[in-house]
């Protein structure tokens, strides 16, 4: 006999696992600080790569000028300026990433809390079913004897 309450709970759990659950369960492997650190690290790598692409495009755009004035250019100043823009960009994105991923972690934590509560209920129902089954078996054995 199917326990409808249990089936309902399991369905809700399965729907959650299908949608937000996959991401949430991945996030749940980390502590909050670790998760934010990891995401900030990913953001820094992504921004660094993107910034390199931008630099390459800018260099190609001014290539003719750069070749013509190769000897007169102040490379130290150019490098310092590029570095300053990079640091500013990274700082802005780190602040944004910390805020965003803290919020996402909190949200996923809430959803997971609800999911685990549902799992707890399913477990309780399963235990009750198991107990009933054992009782039935005992009664059957008594009747047999």
């Amino acid at each position, binding site marked *: 006999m*199917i326990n409808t309450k*249990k*089936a309902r709970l*399991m*369905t809700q*759990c*399965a*729907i959650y696992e*299908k949608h937000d659950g996959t991401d949430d369960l991945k996030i749940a492997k980390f502590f909050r600080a670790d998760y934010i650190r990891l995401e900030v690290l990913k953001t820094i790598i*992504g*921004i660094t*790569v*993107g910034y390199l*692409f*931008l630099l*390459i*495009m800018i260099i*190609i*755009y001014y*290539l*003719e000028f750069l070749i013509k004035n190769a000897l007169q250019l102040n490379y130290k100043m150019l490098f310092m300026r590029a570095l300053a823009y990079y640091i500013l960009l990274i700082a802005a994105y780190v602040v944004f990433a910390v805020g*965003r991923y803290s919020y996402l972690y909190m949200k996923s934590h809430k959803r997971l809390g*609800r999911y685990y*509560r549902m799992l707890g*209920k399913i477990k*309780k129902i*399963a235990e009750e079913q198991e107990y009933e089954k054992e009782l039935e078996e005992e009664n059957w054995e008594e009747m047999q004897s």
Partner: protein
Amino acid sequence: MMFVFEIRAKLTEIYQKYDFIIKTVLKFLLMFFAFSKISKVVGYNTSLSAKVLIIALSAFSAFLPPSLMVFAAVVYVFLQILTASVLIAVTVMMIFLVLYLFFLRFTPKEGLAVIATPVLMSFGFPYLVPLFLGMFGSVLSVVPAACGVVAFYILRAVRNNIITIDEIKALKDQALQIYMDILDDFLKNPQMYVVMAVFAVVIIVIVLVRSLQMDYAFEISLGVGTGVMILGYIIGSLKYEMDFAIGAMLIGSLFSMGIVFVCLFFYRVLNYSAVERVQFEDERYYYYVTAVPKITTGTPKKAIRKILAERREEDDNAEEGEEEAIEAMESMLAGNKSPYKKPLSASLAKRLRKDVAPKQEDYADEDDEDDEVVIKGPKAEQAGLAFLKTGFDKLKAFLPKKGKPTRTRRVTDEEEEDDEAVPSYFAEPSEEPDEPEESDKRDEDEDYE
């Protein structure tokens, strides 16, 4: 109006039934238009521009998640331009990568907007994008919309500078110059910035207005957003040269508003009506469940208004109290374990007592009908005076005999009634039903969440 509701109900039913198919077909159509437009704009490779291949690619992409759909479109663009120029193809790819790394990776679920924006813009109908994203997205929807605009203008810049493959092959030595021309055409195009700014402002305005707590917030925000968009385009066209006619823009904006309004009409139903198909198992069974969300189509409620000649304020209060009392009783009957979580208001308590009290009085009246004494005429005055006298004597007995005279406050009828013994199950919070079990309590908490 009922006819429209019926159509909505029917469409909802169809959507529920064929949810997956409809979504896939829509995705297929979007990708088909995207690939067709790309091949029209930068179709340098004839074999890649073949209709059969476009249909096959669209069909394949329709089954991909939104982020991979964007990736498929970008790869298609890259391969098309690669036939003409490696440098330009790599540059375009790098621009898309920069867009992804800087912006799009923070909004992975809105990839479809990145494809839909250039497609609609190429059809000369970009007005739908900000209105739609504003109504159904968030403030972060500005990012995919802006990226879509960038994608449209970069492809246009490429087309403007590389017309045919023969031409590009003839100018093989001037690849760097073409690269610079494309970037100039792309970056020094004020139209792109105007469109991006208008899209961003419209989306933010719509999101802000629709989040206000007022009636018809969605509809008002749609109207406000359309107005801001028209204004933005007019200001932009006055300051910079824009390639659109104001009349067409006005008609397009209003038509887009109509489309979004229709979408809004269906949104509240369709948003939650996707059928879920899940599989799981326990120690006894395998479950293949199809969960169909309940749709509560609001049947129009017939409101009966009573028009009375005179209406006293007391009656109004009594009616309000009556409604509250009915609600409380209904919630109690429905098995709500704590219908009295809120403290009872004075009017509600009064009303509840009245509900119980008159019946008892009626019975009492029936029993004591013979004992009723009616005093009329001058004797009534005497009887009244005698009653007052006895009352006064009783009051005197309670007063302190020595010291300063104490002030007596006049007790109104209402206060007297309030001081009456309130039925214990209404008044005392300690008399509430037994505490529910821990698990039940959690159930309730979840429901409230």
